């Protein structure tokens, strides 16, 4: 029996919305007890860790991590992504199927899941494509893939343009209770766009897309969800104009949730500056007003989930003219420190932040994680929300180093990470 007592901690529990001093006892792979006494009086354990008043929270559940296996192992592997996740306090990576080949059959999914479990120190839950080869034409074997362990179905940044195909996918998914994750961007309007339309993109002379492309696609998807009754999650809502559609859908009782990437909460289009391709993400960074609206939407609960949208790209695919450069940023390791900006600025308290980072994504996927409660899985992160550091991208554990935070001052360091009671990271 392996027991660990983490004493003298600041316990952050999103489920009860509390931020209080206390102690937590791990027994095996579960949380065995919680105590309001920081010293954990009455709790005995084989190992005792003094947290020194630092924060202890449920591990982050990150929906939408790209691990470039199979196909692009030179960009990222389950091993390196898992190490980055552990160092970033991410205890569950919900991985994307936009690999090469796409994860669209139970055979490929099983292969990936086997590799993931062997190589990654944190939990990996794979998603599968919604349509074969993510081509938007034929649905995948949703039932067989669920049996093989697929937790959600998504074509990632490819939009199923044929509404008949999508409506059938949603209808079929509904009968199995499958969660469909979509990327609400009108593909026509957003084709070829490298930036958000407006003053900045125009001055830089970049092909741009109106944020309206997001609202249009979300409106369409909400109509299809209303028609089919499917379970739907928007991977990223990034613009203020899309929020009323989301709010309306939720008010009407549709089974809809939405996420936003940490980059759209902490950066804006001005950061692109002098064509810095590490700031090229999908959808493109928005105006400051949009960023503020997204932060407010997370605070109000309208946006449910914050994710890293971790997308490894090698130097070659980024060292290109802005238009040609690949989109995406690595973020497993920087998610927590970047999220601390929202805490430091007073926009969100820690329980509120952890609702979006851990509790809500876990709930959406039907997982028992995301809570500091007796009997819950001991997936935990211990961190210092105030510790400053200068980010050096070459110290990241990901194989790819394409972070927009390179050289920036960050606050918030992960000190320890536990998955199923086992310590997988120690600073």
């Amino acid at each position, binding site marked *: 029996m392996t027991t660990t007592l983490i004493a003298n901690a600041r316990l952050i529990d999103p489920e009860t919305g509390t931020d209080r001093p206390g102690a937590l006892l791990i027994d095996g792979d579960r949380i065995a007890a919680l105590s309001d006494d920081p010293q954990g009086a009455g709790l005995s354990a084989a190992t005792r860790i003094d947290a020194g008043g630092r924060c202890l929270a449920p591990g982050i559940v990150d929906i939408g991590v790209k691990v470039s296996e199979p196909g692009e192992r030179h960009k990222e592997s389950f091993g390196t992504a898992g190490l980055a996740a552990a160092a970033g306090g991410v205890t569950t990576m919900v991985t994307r199927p936009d690999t090469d080949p796409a994860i669209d059959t139970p055979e490929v999914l099983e292969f990936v899941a086997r590799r993931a479990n062997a190589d990654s120190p944190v939990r990996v839950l794979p998603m599968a494509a919604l*349509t*074969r080869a993510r081509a938007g*034409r*034929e*649905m*995948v*074997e*949703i*039932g*067989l893939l669920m049996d093989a362990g697929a937790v959600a179905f998504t074509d990632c940044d490819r939009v199923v343009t044929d509404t008949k*195909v999508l409506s*059938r996918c949603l*209808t*079929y998914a*509904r*009968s199995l209770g499958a969660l469909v994750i979509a990327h609400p961007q009108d593909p026509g309007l957003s084709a070829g766009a490298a930036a958000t339309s407006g003053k900045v993109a125009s001055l830089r002379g970049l092909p741009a897309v109106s944020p309206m492309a997001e609202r249009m696609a979300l409106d369409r998807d909400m109509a299809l969800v209303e028609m089919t009754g499917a379970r739907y999650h928007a991977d990223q809502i990034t613009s203020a104009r899309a929020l009323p559609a989301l709010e309306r859908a939720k008010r009407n009782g549709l089974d809809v949730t939405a996420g936003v990437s940490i980059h759209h909460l902490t950066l804006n289009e001005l950061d692109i500056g002098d064509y810095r391709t590490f700031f090229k993400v999908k959808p493109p960074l928005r105006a400051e007003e949009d960023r503020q609206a997204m932060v407010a939407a997370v605070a109000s609960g309208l946006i449910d989930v914050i994710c890293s949208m971790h997308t490894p790209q090698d130097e070659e695919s980024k060292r290109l003219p802005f238009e040609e450069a690949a989109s995406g940023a690595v973020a497993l390791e920087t998610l927590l420190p970047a999220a601390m900006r929202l805490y430091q600025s007073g926009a969100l308290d820690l329980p509120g932040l952890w609702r979006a980072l851990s509790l809500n994504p876990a709930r959406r996927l039907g997982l028992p994680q995301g809570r500091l409660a007796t009997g819950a899985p001991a997936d935990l992160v211990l961190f210092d929300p105030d510790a400053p550091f200068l980010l050096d991208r070459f110290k990241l554990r990901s194989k790819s180093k394409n972070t927009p935070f390179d050289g920036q001052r960050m606050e918030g360091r992960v000190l320890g990470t536990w998955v199923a009671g086992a310590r997988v990271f120690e600073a």
Partner: protein
Amino acid sequence: MTFRQRHLLGIEHLGPDEITAILDLAQDYHRQNRSDDKHGTALAGLTQVNMFFENSTRTQASFELAGQRLGADVMSMQMQASSIKKGETLIDTALTLNAMRPDLLVVRHPQSGAVGLLAEKVECAVLNAGDGRHEHPTQALLDAATIRAAKGRLHRLTVAICGDIAHSRVARSNILLLNRMESRIRLIGPPTLIPAGAAEWGCEVYDDMREGLAGADVVMMLRLQKERMDGGFVPSEREYFYRYGLDAEKLAHAAPDAIVMHPGPMNRGVEIDGTLADDINRSVIRQQVEMGVAVRMAAMDLLARNLRASRAAA
């Protein structure tokens, strides 16, 4: 005389007494078809023309045999190969044919409502051998005759119809008939293959096959066309068989004496397990085929009687 119809266009127009009249007469013909003298004279002197605008082997053969056994002159036309290729409209084809003075016209057409349209333009009796996704009345009648022979009744049975309900005229005719005969109907299939509003047809709808089969007396499987299993409506054949293919394990949820039916042609290993289809204790699939000839004889006999009566009155 209980049977009042001039045409047999669908189950929709039939009363329970008319359905029973056809089934009773079919029972007689069923007996006759097993004897050494299969010849009757009910259609002697009459001309039966089969017009199939859509491929068919078994239904066409069944109608041909039925007409011949009743003494009619039978002619079958493969319409895909003929005038419609040359651009003739359906109504012109009907008028041309009408000029040849047929007495019974058996029509299959890929468009819903086309057989009814044709019936308005001709002076003979028209039998619908399947129009689009609309109706296939003789199939429903032969299914009913088979159920009645196996179960002794048509009322208060629980009948599960499984598979591609949305594209099935067989399902529509069966639902109408079984509703009229006061049986309880369950529709089972992936929601992509269940037509909108099906729950308002007086049916219970299930997307879990085991739940839908629980306690069923009759399990009616439908054919799923290959092109619909390729990711459009259903992800794949193997997922379809896994969720909706009838095998011994799923059938165990039905009543212990439940019978298994299929309108044919079967996709073994897709909608039905091959061994089960051949199990003479459960499967009545061959009885359905046999009953088909008898039911078509009965339907044509009754229509011919009404035709002769109306001509005599004129």
